[in-house]
């Protein structure tokens, strides 16, 4: 299998007048085409920073990031989709207009993309609400609209920055199952950053465990579930508990 993303020896520090805080230290990750990778780590360990680096919003201090074999450029960045923690749907736009935002920015609005947008809105049960304002939708629906906004740009790689953390627990289970299945069925490559261990295990083919600041890679755990299981079904298997406990111990080495 060809690797879509290749990071080598990435270092990154934050600089303030008070001093320097190393955030990431010697990160090496290789993500294969079609793979779903979860990244977990203690809170504030630079997980979001890692995603910002991976999609080229900030540049590493040293080390290289190669996307499909070549360094990140303005152009190649457009093939990376990023889902933020909050949906950030704009209240001054209707749902349909919100979903079209990415296409508008990349000047890709055409009859065909508009049809596709409507198709996705129908597929994810939002078509009825296409003229509604974001505040009229539930948290789960809003997050689905945000996903459509990202998917319409046909990203080869999806970066998910705790996209479910703003939802209440029940919605969160449903939406992560929903969105996890959508991504898996469309065969996209995805990297999910989360602090929720069960989310990481239920969605990921591999779980990368980061160490506390400055974050380095502590361990990489490959999960092996039968292909046909949805994220929610994975949660009911015995293997799920074992992986969960294994990662728990990685993150809390001093507890029994």
């Amino acid at each position, binding site marked *: 299998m060809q690797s879509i993303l290749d990071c080598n020896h990435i270092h990154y520090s934050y600089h303030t007048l008070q001093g320097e805080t190393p955030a990431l230290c010697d990160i090496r990750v290789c993500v294969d085409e079609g793979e779903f990778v979860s990244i977990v780590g203690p809170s504030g360990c630079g997980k979001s920073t890692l995603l910002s680096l991976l999609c080229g*919003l900030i540049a590493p201090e040293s080390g290289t990031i190669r996307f499909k074999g070549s360094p990140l450029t303005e152009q190649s960045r457009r093939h990376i989709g990023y889902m933020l923690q909050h949906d950030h749907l704009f209240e001054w736009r209707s749902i349909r207009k919100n979903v079209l935002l990415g296409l508008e920015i990349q000047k890709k609005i055409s009859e065909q993309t508009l049809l596709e947008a409507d198709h996705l809105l129908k597929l994810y049960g939002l078509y009825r609400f296409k003229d509604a304002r974001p505040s009229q939708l539930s948290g789960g629906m809003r997050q689905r609209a945000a996903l459509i906004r990202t998917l319409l740009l046909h990203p080869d790689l999806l970066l998910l920055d705790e996209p479910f953390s703003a939802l209440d627990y029940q919605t969160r289970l449903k939406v992560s199952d929903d969105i996890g299945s959508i991504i898996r069925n469309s065969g996209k490559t995805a990297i999910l950053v989360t602090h929720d261990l069960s989310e990481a295990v239920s969605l990921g083919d591999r779980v990368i465990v980061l160490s506390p600041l400055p974050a380095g890679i502590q361990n990489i755990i490959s999960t092996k579930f039968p292909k046909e299981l949805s994220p929610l079904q994975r949660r009911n298997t015995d293997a799920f508990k074992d992986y969960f406990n294994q990662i728990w111990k990685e993150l809390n080495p001093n507890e029994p």
Partner: protein
Amino acid sequence: MSHNPISAAQAAYLTSCRFRQRRIRLYRILILIVFLVLWESGARLGWIDDFIFSSPSKLFACFSRMTAEHALFFHIGVTLFETLASFFLVMAGSVLVTILLWYSKSLTETLDPYLVVLNSLPKSALAPLLIVWLGANYTTIILTGVSVAIFGTILNLYTGFSEVDEEKIKLIQTLGGSKNQALFKVILPANRANLIGLMKSNIGLCLVGVIIGEFIASKCGLGYLIIYGSQVFKLDWVILSIFILCIIAVGLYGCIRLLEKKCIPQK
């Protein structure tokens, strides 16, 4: 949003709301009538001196006389034109400057103390200087109006721009957008309500600035009528001009309210 037939309780509630609104409108009109009646009868019965306090009937007579003999509508038109001109200059100028400031953080930090000083300076102190520099003409008066409102507007607008959620700008970046696109897709639309609010306060401020300008240097406009009237002791002129200023202020504010209703969707 529901289309069901409304219940009796809901109907009663709606009726009570309607009644309340009608009552408030009635009170408002009553206050005006009582005020005018008291004023008029006070002047006629000799409670107040109608030479210095005037009276509604004298004002009305004064109004028709001035329209005929002293081109009152010309003066109103001049003041209105100057106010609108300075208002549009303030809005356009402050939006442009704020956009520049938003593009460059260094520029903002450099200019910050100057903006603060210019904003807190009493602008009426500038008016005499402007007259010497530019002469007693429309430009001076319009610029006086501009100077009263523009610095505060820039500071306010900049705060509005910088309070927009950073993550929303990050979203534009992750979608491959430039800083220009962040400006047009996020910053400006997010500040719509803020802009309308500033328009509301600026239309009043510009009127104040224009009147100050007309007080000091002008041969026409309502400010000129007020100053001239007080100098020759024609207090009818002064009071009538003030009355007309009230109506202009309310009218301009009303126009912006209409704009607000058009631009900002009501919930």
